């Protein structure tokens, strides 16, 4: 047997791991490494998270816009209601004055007829 052969056998011989090897490996695996800022950033641009970001951006843009529209609509309705009340008042005044005049003409005509 040559020396080379002996050397190889020696190098490749079966060797039992230390007794606490398995425990140490499991302990190391259970320790999650602290993610770097790149890893953290990359989490945001992963497809599922990107959808949420898009939704959030859209909501944050649309919400004030919708609020503005609702406020404008409320103002429009309030002005319309005010104008409606003015119109009803004006028609009421015109109608009542007309009625008053009619009544007096009617009464006057009755007086005339009786005389």
């Amino acid at each position, binding site marked *: 047997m040559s020396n080379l052969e002996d050397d190889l056998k020696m190098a490749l011989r079966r060797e039992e791991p230390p007794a606490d090897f398995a425990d140490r490996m499991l302990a190391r695996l259970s320790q999650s490494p602290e993610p770097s800022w790149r890893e953290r950033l990359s989490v945001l641009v992963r497809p599922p998270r990107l959808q949420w970001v898009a939704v959030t951006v859209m909501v944050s843009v649309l919400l004030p816009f919708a609020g503005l529209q609702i406020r404008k609509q409320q103002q429009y*309705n309030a*002005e*319309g*209601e005010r*104008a*409606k009340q*003015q*119109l*009803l*008042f*004006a*028609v*009421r*005044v*015109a*109608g*009542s*004055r*007309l*009625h*008053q*005049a*009619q*009544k*007096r*003409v*009617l*009464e*006057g*005509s*009755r*007086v*005339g*007829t009786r005389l």
Partner: protein
Amino acid sequence: MKIPWVLATFVLVSAGYGQALDFKNLEKLSAKAKDVTEVTLDGSLLRFAAKFLSNDDPDQAKVKKLVAELKGIYVKTYEFEGEGEYSESDLAPIRSQLRSPGWSRIVGVHTKREHDNTEIYLKTGGTEPGGLAIVCANPRELTVVNIVGKIDLEELSELGGNLGVPKLDLDKPKGVKPDGKKDDH
């Protein structure tokens, strides 16, 4: 005796785009008056207001129909603490406008007892603007109403009884006694 403008008669004043009466002269009365009520609804505001009238409410539906062809409604009401706080000269510019061509006075009622003077004018004719003007003057209150555009007096009178206006029953006049001497003009 027939009432000259019996309600049953359909009175339609044809109108184009009319011009409102100039109320500027009355503005100075605001300082003297106890209460001032002013309504100024020009064409666009009138259309805007009409949009908010409900078709489901019969009274509002009538008003909506009534104002459909109007170009403006203007009301000025001044209430005074005492008598004599305004004079005929304050009304002169209004009356002057109502003497211009196209306007005709259809009713003038003066009650001696209450010193109440009510006049109703119509603007009619051809391409001229149409409308209605009502001037009610009594010692403590002055009301001027100007409606510009096509106004149906029957419809307006139908609103008597609605909108808080008492309905005048013209079909049954016999049971009613006159309560004072009236001086018709």
